[in-house]
């Protein structure tokens, strides 16, 4: 029973990781930028979710608005922070991104206060008895699992069934070739940032539901953990990101029980990452 419970907790955490890391892997696939500031959008999503839910009283409405607004902010981040430095060495964008992330944490602290916010009446806190087996799952946790599944199916349909999705995949494969076929690669990049940021915002709202708390530093763990995940999965591979996120979630949840006296949660995740990279330098599903 304990095993099953740990497994489900791990999958819920893995679902959150997936939603955050998807945007990151999309950005890396397209621009080869390690977008640390992605976690800033996750935090923004958490704040907007709580504020809008408290204002409108509807979680669904708040979720949609949050994803839209954060998506647009993500496009702004691309325009202001990355577009001017795309042709410079990769470490430039990395440092700019880290600086932006630190600045964002400070801005959240100054604007929303250092102690964080909570829902007035936290929604989806009821528990469901799973299979009548005496195993309980919070509704919010179920939402995470369903949301992750929906995001993956949506992304799959978008990238295989729509014109913009095909343009997107073409641009990832070879930007110059795509441009020569008349694809407006600039538009693809904006779309990329919009979708990635909206997914991170959704993850932010869900984490806020699970903990009933948003605080300025809630993005600092995801900021580096998500980087580890996209590298682990094989950079630019969506399937790899999914597998890596879920695997990391499960390994952390078992590891903290069985290895907790030796290593803390982050160290377990990174020990796993290093072992995998020494075995497969290109990541689990990466191509050389």
């Amino acid at each position: 029973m304990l095993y099953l419970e740990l497994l489900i907790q791990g999958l819920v955490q893995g679902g959150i990781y997936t939603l955050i890391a998807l945007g990151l892997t999309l950005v890396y696939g397209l621009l080869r930028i390690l977008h640390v500031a992605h976690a800033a959008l996750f935090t923004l999503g958490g704040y907007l979710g709580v504020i809008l839910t408290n204002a409108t009283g509807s979680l669904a409405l708040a979720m949609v608005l949050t994803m839209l607004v954060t998506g647009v902010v993500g496009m702004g981040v691309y325009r202001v922070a990355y577009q001017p430095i795309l042709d410079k060495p990769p470490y430039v964008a990395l440092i700019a991104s880290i600086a932006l992330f630190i600045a964002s944490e400070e801005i959240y602290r100054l604007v929303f206060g250092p102690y964080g916010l909570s829902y007035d009446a936290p929604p989806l806190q009821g528990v469901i008895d799973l299979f009548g087996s005496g195993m309980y799952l919070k509704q919010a946790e179920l939402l995470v699992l369903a949301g992750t599944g929906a995001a993956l199916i949506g992304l799959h349909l978008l990238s295989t069934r729509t014109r913009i999705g095909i343009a997107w995949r073409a641009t990832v494969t070879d930007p110059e070739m795509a441009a020569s076929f008349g694809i407006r690669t600039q538009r693809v990049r904006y779309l990329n940032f919009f979708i990635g940021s909206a997914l991170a915002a959704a993850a932010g709202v869900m984490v806020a539901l699970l903990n009933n708390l948003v605080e300025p530093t809630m993005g600092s763990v995801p900021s580096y953990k998500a980087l580890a995940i996209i590298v682990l999965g094989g950079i630019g591979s969506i399937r790899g990101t999914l597998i890596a996120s879920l695997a990391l979630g499960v390994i952390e949840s078992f590891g903290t029980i069985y290895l907790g006296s030796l290593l803390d949660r982050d160290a377990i995740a990174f020990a796993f990452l290093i072992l995998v990279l020494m075995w497969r330098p290109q990541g689990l599903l990466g191509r050389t």
Partner: protein
Amino acid sequence: MGYEITLATSMCISVVFALSLNLITGFCGQISLGHAAFFGVGAYTAALSSQAGLAFPLDLLAAAAAAAVFGFIVGLSSLRVRHDFLAITTMGFGFLFLGVVRQQDWLGGEMGISAIPGSGLSKLGYLGFVAAVAVAVALFSAYLKRSWLGFSFAAIADDEDTARVVALDVARYKLLAFVLGTAIAGIAGGLYAHHVRFISPDSFGFVESIAVLSMVIVGGIGSVPGVVFAALVLTALPLWFQVIEDYKLLLYSALLFIMMQLCEDGIGGLMRRLMQGRRRTT
């Protein structure tokens, strides 16, 4: 006066630390996001060995040796993964170090190690010692950059595959860069342990790794005078900014962001362009 001496000592330790990363990232082109771990290995080694009775300057050598051993291991990973993958792997080593230290009682766990013996020198004397180390490391870096070894490092930083084609033993030079750089970081850590005389895992985290990387990048990656200048200024800056306490980090990160947008080759690159401009006009 005591405050100024303490600040100056911290600034000199930062110079040693930043130059050690500059050797790996600047000269040899191997990015590291976990450099604070080696600083930490040095600090813990110096703290424990001096508590065990090792005399002051000798325990710095122990710190350098311990850090170099870990540097060698991380260096081995740089033979397997490159660029962004290496950045994430080194970041992983940083977290692994923190995770292990936090859970080990003999390393003080979360509480850290306190009552580390001092250097036996007066405050001013210790500043003199640290400054001498900083100058020595700076001169060594400048020498290294012009040497045959530095030339090989530059070739690897430029294009690893081409370096291999012209029969450079890339693996050996990379390992050497990691061992040298991390040994110096270990010395910096040892100096830090004797300076503050209390260490805890929080002083060697991801933020510190980023801070030292920003010193190297703001200074101009690979430029020795630039990195020295950036290490001095960026260490003193947060303290000068204490007047505007609440906005300190915001200002610091905004500066870094603007720097990256406007002149990514840092102070060193800026100086170089100024000099070239002057030469062209004359």
